[in-house]
């Protein structure tokens, strides 16, 4: 599939795109230099030129695809150095349908910091599906024999990936896109809200 070209505008992800195509937003979270951009580039290959939207301090990768025969535009949001601030701008989380959290198989601190990223994410998006990826397994294959408490504790699937040799990268993104679409169709937040309203009555 070809990219939708102009990614210079931020869509209203709660609705559909101007052309009527379903649009979802998938955000990437994690420390500086864990390889978030490298993973996106490996998934999208060279066909897609990212747009840097300086107003939002982010890099946007717009990807057009078909999921179960339905056309869909996926905007992947990647940080553009915002990690150096204490947190991401709220607009980064706004309307996100799924999140991919990345840590570095060679740097323990990036794993430790996931807790903080996750806490912030859940403040804005309490129910969106989250995926966790340990990247750079090519540089530390030992981690593929290891389990990690953070994803287990939070019920998040963990993917062992390498942006360098491509291991499990495509699976990670495809699963995230599918989950984002499912979330958009049937957001648990809304269901929960209605349920809470009903309980109140």
């Amino acid at each position, binding site marked *: 599939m070809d990219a939708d070209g102009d990614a210079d505008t931020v869509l209203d992800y709660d609705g559909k795109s101007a052309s009527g195509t379903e649009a979802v937003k998938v955000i990437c979270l994690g*420390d*500086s*230099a864990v*390889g978030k951009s*490298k993973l996106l580039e490996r998934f999208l*290959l060279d066909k897609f030129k990212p747009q840097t939207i300086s107003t939002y301090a982010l890099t946007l990768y717009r990807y057009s695809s078909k999921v179960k025969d339905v056309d869909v535009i996926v905007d992947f949001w990647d940080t553009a*150095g915002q*990690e*150096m601030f*204490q947190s991401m701008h709220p607009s980064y989380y706004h309307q996100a349908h799924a999140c991919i959290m990345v840590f570095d198989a*060679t*740097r*323990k*601190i990036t*794993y*430790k*910091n996931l807790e*903080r990223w996750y806490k912030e994410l859940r403040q804005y998006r309490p129910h969106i599906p989250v995926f966790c990826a340990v990247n*750079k397994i*090519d*540089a530390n294959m030992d*981690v*593929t*024999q*290891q*389990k*990690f*408490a*953070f994803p287990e504790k939070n019920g998040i699937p963990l993917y*062992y990936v*390498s*942006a*360098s*040799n*491509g*291991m*499990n*990268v*495509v*699976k990670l993104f495809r699963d995230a896109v599918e989950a984002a679409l499912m979330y958009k169709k049937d957001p648990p937040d809304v269901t929960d809200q209605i349920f809470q309203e009903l309980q109140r009555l």
Partner: protein
Amino acid sequence: MSEITQKMRKLGIRFDPPSLVLIYSNDKMKLHQRVMPVRNFNAGSNVNFFATQLKQRHEEFLHSVPLISIEKMLRILQEHIRGSPLESILKNINSEYEINPDEDLNKLTDDQLHRKKLIMEASFVANQLQPSDPDYEYDRQVDFEDNKIESGWDSESNAKETETDDFWG
């Protein structure tokens, strides 16, 4: 083409006159030395810019030398110009050019982060499988299920973490 058969053996820096020194071998395994002057370089110079210039000017000799190695030599020269003692220079510059798994890279300046990324890039490129490689597969999947052991990254002190980490407030 002489440049193809050259292999870098050692890279060094000379303080006076400031120059980059390359020891390389040719196809007959004979060692050669090449001294490349570093001009107009001072305490405030951008090492990345100067390293790039040197690499271009001496392309024939430096084409296979990683830019980051040249940068590192220039940083040593720069600290010397600033008057630091050699011992502390070597210690500090080494830590600048290695990845400490416990260092929080979120806290670095753009320049510092860029340097760390360059170092990581070396391992990325070394293991990279590209569409042109015979082993390349776009959707490469490997299942690492069962018999997992604890990573050891969860065991230590959450207490220490909350005490010492002031960055996240």
